[in-house]
């Protein structure tokens, strides 16, 4: 077990970081907001953490906090600016925002290190810290899926007009989902930078948008558990697919396409259906 852990510590770290990244997309999705701004927040977090560590020598949690704060403020402004948009239009505007950031850091000169990125952001951040942060985030989000907040968020997603009419603060919930997504994305980006000690512009490109989106779709977008499943699957899939060698990207594409076509609710939805089917005969009277 310990040998396995030591051999795979990098993958374990990236699994928890992927989980936070997937959650940064899943949280807005749950409120019916198709925002991919979490990717931009990941970039903001990653670069802010690297800059304050390198130039000001801040301790890791202060660096992560700085990134999260900046990303949250920008995410709130973005929510105000993009309030008119929904659906694909919102998705595209937020993708464009994330990609503008990646061009901006290439042209950022000394501050962002240009196309080479930043190196040597050494810190004493441990794997345990990453796991603790991820677990804390999951617990908080799991709580938000229960009781009144959970019902409010479901109402905002399923029928915003009805939700407004019964007094649910739709606009506030949408804005909050942007901010929470920004916090989670920045946290993932900052921790990734501090663990790897480097950050490059390629890391925050379009492929990260694709990765986050596919994790949510394959895992399931309704709950934090879907993001967890997606993060686990897409962290370990490359290892499992090692035997197909060069055709790995092909298999990856097929998996994503098949999931999108045949399993719209994700693996989580499949599992929930299965559990429901198992329980049904046990109901009193045995009615279908």
């Amino acid at each position, binding site marked *: 077990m310990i040998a396995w852990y030591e051999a795979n510590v990098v993958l374990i770290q990236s699994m928890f970081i992927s989980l936070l990244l997937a959650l940064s997309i899943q949280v807005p999705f749950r409120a*019916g907001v*198709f925002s991919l701004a979490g990717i931009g927040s990941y970039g903001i977090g990653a670069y802010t953490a690297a800059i304050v560590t390198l130039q000001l020598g801040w301790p890791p949690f202060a660096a992560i906090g700085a990134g999260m704060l900046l990303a949250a403020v920008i995410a709130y402004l973005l929510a105000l*600016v*993009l309030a*008119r*948009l*929904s*659906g*694909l*239009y919102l*998705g*595209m*505007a937020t*993708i*464009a*925002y994330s*990609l*503008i950031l990646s*061009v*901006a850091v*290439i*042209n950022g000169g000394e501050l962002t290190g240009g*196309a080479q990125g930043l190196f040597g952001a050494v810190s004493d951040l441990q794997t345990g810290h990453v796991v603790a942060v991820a677990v804390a985030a999951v617990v908080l989000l799991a709580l938000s899926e229960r009781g009144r907040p959970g019902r409010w968020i479901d109402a905002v997603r399923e029928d*915003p*007009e009805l*939700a*407004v009419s019964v007094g649910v603060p*739709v606009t506030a919930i949408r804005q909050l989902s942007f901010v929470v997504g920004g916090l989670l994305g920045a946290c993932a980006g900052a921790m990734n930078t501090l663990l790897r000690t480097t950050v490059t512009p390629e890391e925050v490109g*379009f492929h990260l948008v*694709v990765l986050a*989106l*596919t994790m949510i*779709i394959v895992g399931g977008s309704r709950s934090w558990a879907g993001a967890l499943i997606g993060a686990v699957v897409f962290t370990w899939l490359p290892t499992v697919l090692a035997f197909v060698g*060069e*055709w790995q*990207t*092909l298999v*990856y*594409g*097929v*998996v*994503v*396409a*098949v*999931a*999108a*076509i*045949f399993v*719209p609710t994700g693996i989580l939805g499949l599992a929930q259906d299965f559990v429901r089917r198992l329980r049904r005969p046990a109901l009193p009277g045995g009615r279908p």
Partner: protein
Amino acid sequence: MAQNLLNALTLGSLYLLFALGMSLAWGTIGILNFAHGSIFMFAAFTGHLLVGQVALPLPLVLLIGTAVGAALSVLAQVLAFEPIQRRARDHRRAELQILVGGIGIATIPLAIAQHATKSVPFGFTGSTFQVEVYRLGPVQLTNVQLVILGAAAVLTGVLAWWLRSARTGLALRSIGVDAEVATMMGVNRRGLAVATMAVAGALAGIAGVLLTYYLGSIAAESGDGFLIKAFAAIVLGGIGSIGGAVAGAMILALAETVVLTQTSGMWVDAVSFGLIFAVLVLRPRGLFGRKEVRRT
């Protein structure tokens, strides 16, 4: 100056050929095909493979590209997008699934081409076509540019006429306005959807082959960049509008040329992203798009 303008016009025509099909499919049958860039690249790649065996002239390579593009696009429609639209509970869910499904499908031709070319750029070196340069005063014009400008003008004209005047074109536009009512009026939604995707794929194939002739060679990854740019052009002009696609493609190409020639650094890519963002914030329906109603 005049030379830059001409080059921008050529680039805009290529963007236009690529964007037309995407805009048509999105504005009418509601399919934003993220595999469009991959189809575009694979049509050129098939041309490259065949030209390596037989020395083919330009019209034949174009025809092959058109056929491959149309076939791949129809395949994606029949195997992926149609089942998704049939099963999805609501419109928004379908949009998202089509987006992600398209991203997945796009990986397949890309992986094949990358494997076959070892990610080295490929071209039509075996083609019988020879590039000729004409000098008109201060500007240089190649015969490839002439073909590109001509193809873009003719195909856009034909498509615009078809959508405006032909019976099937009107039927297709009616699906874009209200799919259910259109079906009740006897519009064959399924057949028209397949036909639209075939046209879109064919246009992508033509754009792919012409781009390869224009640049000499393209890489397997070239499709991705074009996808984002075409997207910017469509959003700027207004989704589903032919005039909008023309305006969007030309404005984008001009803006990129200006940024490339007037500024230092690598800001060119930011032009398309910035345009998408700015248009969506300031005027979400684009220059010539229909206004959408939203309550919350």
